């Protein structure tokens, strides 16, 4: 089965993505329609079959999590090329957020610098519901990642850059915000 959208396997595309990632003031790229359609449906099906564990640390987060294996040589190769890092397999955590879920900044949960890889498995998520993954430098500048099903975001978190997930409000009741998140060390 094809894994990535064939456009992302083209040398010209990979070069553009790498250049955009490595040479931006905010080192991040968001790639739409990233996976092959059938592969993406398979990821969503796998997500739906996971057993999630609810986690609540009131002063930091509320969401459900599960481990998620995504063996994809095409993905590993693509990420290695863009980030210039050697990658064998990326370990993802699946996050499921519904109404009243969130992740906020907390001094006890500071993430060390690294490269985040975020796969959005939520189709048609309305931004009015909250649930937006947002990066902040702690000095007032914020970088929200626009939600888009079948998108892949690569974000380099340099020192002081942290992320949070906006509170999911009551318009997200009975909806599910599904994300796969990994950090490349």
């Amino acid at each position, binding site marked *: 089965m094809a894994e990535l959208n064939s456009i992302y396997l083209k040398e010209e595309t990979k070069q553009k993505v790498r250049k955009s990632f490595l040479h931006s003031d905010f080192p991040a790229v968001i790639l739409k329609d990233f996976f092959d359609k059938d592969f993406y449906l398979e990821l969503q099906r796998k997500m739906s079959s996971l057993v999630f564990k609810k986690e609540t640390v009131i002063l930091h987060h509320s969401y459900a999590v599960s481990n998620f294996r995504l063996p994809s040589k095409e993905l590993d190769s693509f990420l290695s090329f863009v980030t210039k890092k050697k990658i064998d397999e990326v370990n993802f955590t699946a996050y499921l957020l519904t109404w009243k879920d969130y*992740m906020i*900044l907390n001094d006890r949960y500071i993430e060390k610098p690294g490269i985040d890889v975020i796969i959005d498995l939520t189709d048609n998520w309305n931004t009015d519901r909250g649930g937006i993954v947002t990066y902040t430098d702690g000095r007032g500048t914020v970088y929200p990642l626009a939600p888009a099903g079948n998108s892949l975001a690569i974000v380099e978190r340099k020192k002081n850059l942290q992320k949070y997930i906006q509170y999911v*409000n009551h318009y997200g009741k009975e909806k599910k915000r599904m994300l796969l998140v990994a950090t490349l060390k």
Partner: protein
Amino acid sequence: MALLQALDKQEFQPKQADLFQFLQTADLLYSDDSVLKEFISVFSSTELINLMQSVTKLKLNKKIDLFASIYQDTDFLLPHDDQLSGRKIAFMLYLNDLDEKDGGALAFYGSKNKTADRIVKRIIPRAGTLVFFEVSALSFHTVEEMLTDTQRITLSGWFYG
């Protein structure tokens, strides 16, 4: 109410971060409005500060902060403790009534292992009610999400010491 009319003339800015989403004025201590000036003069008066000291047993100085907030549909303030240098007492004066269905309750958490545990007290805003509490490492509280088109209007701030 005169306070509501005075606030109607103030500029509210949207405030949004990981922890909150609502509308808020700048610090009202510098407002030119006569009603607000009178309110501030009462709230920072020696008599009121002495009363607060007597009730709370906390040593206060004359400094206060005061601002107005409006919470609308989906607005919220997630759990936190209000701790910042010098803050001793947090207060909020509710200027309108909400029903349970509107959301917007002020909820307090108990603590376990020095962190927030479960909600132990919920206060639904009623016009004219003043709520105040000691700011400490354990004063965990939240403003629950607004669920309807009703606005939640408050005057809030802190006493310092």
